[in-house]
């Protein structure tokens, strides 16, 4: 009993080193926890933003598919940083039994903010059969 109490009185506190190590570990754990939460928040925002952009880009692509090669269709879409451009007609195949007014055309939908470009091809109606 006596020896035990004496041992306690000799150890009546932590050394500075111990306290610092404990504080550092606690700091790392808490910092990791907060970083994780912040990272997940950022991730959630970014994925929400991407979902929104996917929906907007889809509307733009579908609008570009609406056979609007002369641009006379009223642009009904809400203001979005997208620009639709019509490009060259695809070359018609060489062997063809009958002339047709339908042709394939390249189109591009460009997001002016992210400079991402979506390309595709669509059917258009020509004024004269080719």
């Amino acid at each position, binding site marked *: 009993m006596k020896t035990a109490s004496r041992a306690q009185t000799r150890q009546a506190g932590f050394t500075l080193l111990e306290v610092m190590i404990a504080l550092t570990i606690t700091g790392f754990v808490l910092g990791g926890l907060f970083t994780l939460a912040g990272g997940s928040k950022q991730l959630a925002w970014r994925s929400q933003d991407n979902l929104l952009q996917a929906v907007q880009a889809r509307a733009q692509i579908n609008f570009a598919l609406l056979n609007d090669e002369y641009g006379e269709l009223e642009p009904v879409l*809400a203001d979005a940083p997208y620009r639709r451009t019509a490009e060259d007609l695809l070359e018609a195949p060489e062997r063809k039994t009958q002339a047709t007014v339908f042709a394939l055309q390249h189109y591009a939908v460009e997001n002016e903010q992210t400079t991402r470009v979506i390309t595709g091809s669509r059917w258009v109606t020509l004024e004269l059969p080719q």
Partner: protein
Amino acid sequence: MKSFHSRTALRPPEPDPRRQQGFTLLELLLAMSLTALLLGLLSAGVYGLVRDWDDNAAGLDRSLDQTIAILQIERALQGAFPHGYRDPETLGQVVYFSGEPEQLSWVSTVSPQRDAGLMAWQLESDPQQGVLLRLAPAFTDDPQPRLQQREAIVLLPGYSASFSYLFNVGNGLDKVWREQWSGATELRLPQAVHVRLTPLAADAPPPADTELDIVAPIYAAEHRRIRPANTLFSPQLSAPAQSSAAQPFRGGN
């Protein structure tokens, strides 16, 4: 034990162990209040963190639900079918499609439950709840009475929808977005449907805070037998050769 005592006997005398038997009340109170303070701060921080986390997760869930709903609407509109039925009053064959500025009913080959057969869809913009959806099987008759009996589900909460219908017949000379489209008088479907989704509240939390659009081209706009009505306002489009002209989208099939 004895040898131990003899070794330690050289050290300076230790304080009386009875005086160091515990902490004083003051020390205890101080330590406990400090601990309570720290724990309180920490738990407040963690509580905020967890609530933030939950908010984010719920917002992301709502975003996903909304995106899936929008894609589903787009698919169902693209798969619109010129469903013909016999009008019991006139005994004539008409096409089912009822497009109003705030409400749209149509028959689609797409069904969200993967039910067999054609499905009648109805989207309605409710100023309180959002965009409502009703679904009913389209057998061979007018599905409108069945649709009205169905319970509506809120498909897009926090949004109001307005519909417009693309009139685009012939070789692309007259392209107009109309506010209304009746399949019973046009006897065909519009070329495309545009849905504008507007947030009901200006300061709504995400994801219901952005204006969104759905544009769905309708590929199968004409019925196999029912000829489109010549209610077209442009005289050059009433020529039968042009009204029955194949659409470019069909050219690929």
